[in-house]
């Protein structure tokens, strides 16, 4: 066991996995000498050499494309996109190559890789350093989408992602990078992909959330003594429908919380899944507490991010709904 934050958890996992498996290669902008702008890859180039921890030119589509080209040839590359906001220049590589190669080759060629990228707001990044673009990936068949909300999960999910054999979009909530330290096992444990985590238990309402919103929701629930199931999805695609169903059938009331904009945010799919398979269990509307459908602001970002007040307003509305 070691006491670490999420950055340290990710860093030590990469270190451990690279020591065991030399098909793992890291590549990205400023990940080598500089150790990444958030320091997730700090020290790894010094340890594993510049051939395995590659500082690339400034071209996201090249980083992603190269990584795919390594993966189809039997390596396990871990490309980093410096901010998720910049990933769109590589979107064609992600949607039309990464996600579709297994399919278009009848399974003859596969793409085992883990694309890491920090996402979300709360660090005064404004329009272009704060985006939560998970919907773009969740909507894309062929991708697996994962996001941890604490150091333990970060380590376990990253380890599991590296063994999956399919492309994983690994979204790191940058606001939580250093938000919390916790005891994390030193061994190579996995957090299963596709399984949610019940972080708080209760009978009156189900709150589904993930990533950066998990601590916010958990503290709102605790502070206000809400009798809630709080589900941390951990995997956004494919989601853990069993965990959701079990909770919703018990509580009959649902609130979904995420930072991404509401329209076609993750909450839309969760809400649709619930209302198409268990509407008869519901006592109240399925509410979403999300970022608004605007670009991400700089100076006023605290208004953008879902907060305790908004979460409690929604929770109270579904609890009081008759």
């Amino acid at each position, binding site marked *: 066991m070691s006491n670490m934050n999420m950055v340290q958890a990710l860093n030590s996992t990469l270190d451990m996995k690279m020591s065991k498996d030399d098909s793992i290669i890291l590549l990205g902008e400023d990940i080598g000498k500089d150790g990444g702008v958030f320091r997730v890859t700090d020290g790894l180039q010094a340890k594993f050499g510049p051939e395995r921890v590659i500082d690339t030119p400034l071209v996201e589509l*090249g980083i992603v494309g190269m990584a795919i*080209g390594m993966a189809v040839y*039997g390596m396990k590359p871990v490309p980093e996109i410096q901010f998720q906001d910049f990933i769109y220049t590589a979107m064609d590589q992600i949607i039309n190559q990464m996600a579709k190669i*297994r*399919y*278009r080759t009848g399974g003859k060629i596969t793409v085992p890789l883990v694309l890491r990228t920090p996402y979300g707001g709360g660090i005064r990044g404004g329009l272009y350093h704060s985006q939560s673009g998970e919907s773009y990936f969740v909507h894309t068949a062929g991708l697996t989408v994962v996001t941890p909300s604490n150091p333990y999960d970060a380590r376990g999910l990253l380890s599991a992602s590296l063994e999956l054999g399919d492309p994983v979009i690994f979204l790191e909530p940058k606001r939580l990078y250093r938000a919390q330290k916790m005891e994390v096992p030193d061994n190579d444990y996995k957090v299963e992909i596709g399984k949610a985590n019940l972080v708080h238990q209760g009978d009156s309402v189900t709150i589904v959330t993930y990533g950066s919103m998990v601590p916010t929701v958990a503290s709102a629930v605790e502070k206000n003594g809400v009798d809630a199931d709080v589900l941390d999805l951990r995997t956004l695609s494919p989601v853990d429908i069993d965990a959701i169903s079990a909770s919703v059938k018990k509580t009959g009331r649902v609130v979904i919380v995420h930072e991404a904009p509401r329209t076609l945010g993750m909450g839309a799919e969760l809400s649709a899944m619930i209302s198409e398979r268990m509407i008869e269990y519901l006592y109240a509307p399925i509410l979403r507490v999300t970022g608004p459908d605007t670009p991400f602001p700089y100076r006023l970002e605290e208004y953008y991010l879902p907060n305790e007040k908004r979460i409690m307003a929604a929770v109270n509305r579904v609890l009081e709904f008759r």
Partner: protein
Amino acid sequence: MTEIVNEQMEKEKHIRGLGAMILSRTLDKKIITAQRQGRVGFYTPTMGQEAAQVGLSMALDKDDLIYEYYRDVPMMLHRGVPIEIILNQVFGNRDDLAKGRQMPSHLVARDYNFMSVPSPVATNLPLAVGTAYAKVYRKEKGIVVASFGDGSTSTPDFHAAMNMAAVFNLPILFFCENNGWAISTPVEKQTKTEIWKKADAYGMVGMKADGNNLVEMYKTAQQAVEHVRSGKGPVLLEARCYRMGPHSTSDDPTKYQTDIVLDGSEKDPIVVSQNALKAIGLVNDQLIEKVRAESQRIVNEKFDQQEKIPPPDPETIFQDVYAKETWILREEREEIL
């Protein structure tokens, strides 16, 4: 010239090369005709690019990996991809390696070191760079070839791949088959330089080849391949050739093109290459006639045979999205089938 004639191996190589060109042309014409008859859904003819592709292919080894593009059937045939694999893909039938999922002309032949084809042009190029990197990392021999058309040089992926290949000094050959057109756009409107010169901007070697003449093409390709193989870094090789057919069976080139090179005319690379080989005494009309007849027989036979194979099982739609079927796909499969 004399060294070639003297060496039996080189002699056979050229004859095999011409044979692949003729087989490919025969297959091309068969598929185009079949498409007009409604027996095939779509096709991108390869006529006019045979010498360029086969000339390069002759300079490659078995271990070399190719990120091919949709017009590379001649190269595939030359490297020994069975005609059945090609036809199964064209029909999208049950035996198609990709289970009938892609349009014709998007082949899969991993066992022959071809890496499969996405439709968005040039998007394989960054992958080729990654694969070349992996080969070097693993200390493997063999080079990587990435082929594409003249229009593809305008894409983001071309730029990314060229720059990264040069920065990492990788064993990769960028093979531009310049047929003069990107659908209706002539290369003069695509870019204001000669394509092979674009290599300079990346600190890479650029070469130009006569892609219309098998003998000349092979010579230049050998130099390019040799440079890459020896670790001196990537090369951009531009082969000048023609697009003798329409862009695809959906295209009507008469709307924009007046100077279409006709089958069997003096600019036809098969005619040019035959003449070159005849001039050095490697082939004669009799041999060519034999190859032609044999090609026609094989193509007709295989075409009828593969055409009969039924379509894939509808279940296949739901396979190979992930290594394991997700609950979502299971649910969707059960609803739909």
